């Protein structure tokens, strides 16, 4: 399998993401610079990593979402290529219009850096097939702008279509309906604030993120 990790100026979890992908799949991903306009031929998984792309100027993810590589990512997503956006990657996906809603400043205004108790709401997606329905996990979060917002109709639609992949088990950052991760309509794009790539090795002290990569990369292998 061929995966790609997109690197924006200010990304800082790109190498963690690459390590997690290589650890699970046995193949190192291509690191793709934001100024490239094409993905490597045959890319069958794209990851948008965490960080502070463009210094969070204007809005978190706003500038990155308009960078040249994102046109290729949007085209690939439309063709069904799986796209995972973590933290800043989730913000980029909403800003690019690949996922509904927006990520606002945490309700408590503080930067949050801790393990977040989560529940798997949809275990049928390609990203969450490694988990059981309703399974409880704890995955690290590290964000200032993770407060998921969308209008009530959009939230009802996400609930009705099973597109809420993960929910916080209690209010963490003010997110509407405690949403921690959402899927697109086709189910091939997932954005989530928690960092599964930070919970894949014994040294991390937490292996709860491992099955996301195992499930997804197992499907793609």
């Amino acid at each position, binding site marked *: 399998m061929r995966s790609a990790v997109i690197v924006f100026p200010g990304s800082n979890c790109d190498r963690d993401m690459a390590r997690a992908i290589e650890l699970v799949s046995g193949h190192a991903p291509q690191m793709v610079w934001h100024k490239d306009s094409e993905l490597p031929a045959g890319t069958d998984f794209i990851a948008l990593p965490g960080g502070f792309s463009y210094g969070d100027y204007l809005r978190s993810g706003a500038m990155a979402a*308009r960078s040249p590589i994102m046109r290729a990512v949007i085209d690939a997503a439309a063709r069904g290529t799986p796209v995972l956006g973590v933290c800043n990657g989730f913000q980029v996906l909403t800003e690019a219009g690949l996922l509904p809603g927006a990520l606002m400043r945490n309700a408590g205004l503080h930067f949050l850096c801790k393990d977040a108790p989560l529940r798997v709401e949809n275990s049928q997606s390609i990203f969450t097939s490694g988990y059981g329905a309703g399974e409880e996990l704890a995955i690290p979060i590290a964000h200032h702008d993770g407060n998921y*917002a969308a209008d009530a109709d959009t939230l009802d639609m996400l609930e009705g279509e099973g597109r809420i992949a993960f929910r916080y088990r209690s209010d963490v950052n003010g997110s509407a309906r405690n949403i921690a991760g959402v899927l697109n309509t086709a189910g091939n794009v997932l954005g989530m604030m928690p960092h599964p790539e930070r919970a894949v090795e014994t040294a991390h002290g937490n292996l709860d993120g491992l099955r996301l990569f195992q499930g997804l990369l197992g499907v793609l292998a």
Partner: protein
Amino acid sequence: MKVEVFVTLKPGVLDPQGRAITHALHGLGFAGVEDVRAGRYLTLDVADGTTEAEVREMCQQLLANTVIENFRISGI
């Protein structure tokens, strides 16, 4: 030519920063402040002849996130 753009949160969207500013004003003794909404103000230096439609397009494509924000254009 200078154009001003005001980006504000839509009514009903919770504004944690505005709420913190409200609390801070209360702390300073301004008890009459009921609510504060924080927004963004941009000045654009654009070529003469730039139309409002073009600035509107800039707002929709980048300057505002219309999921949560409204914008107002002035000076054109």
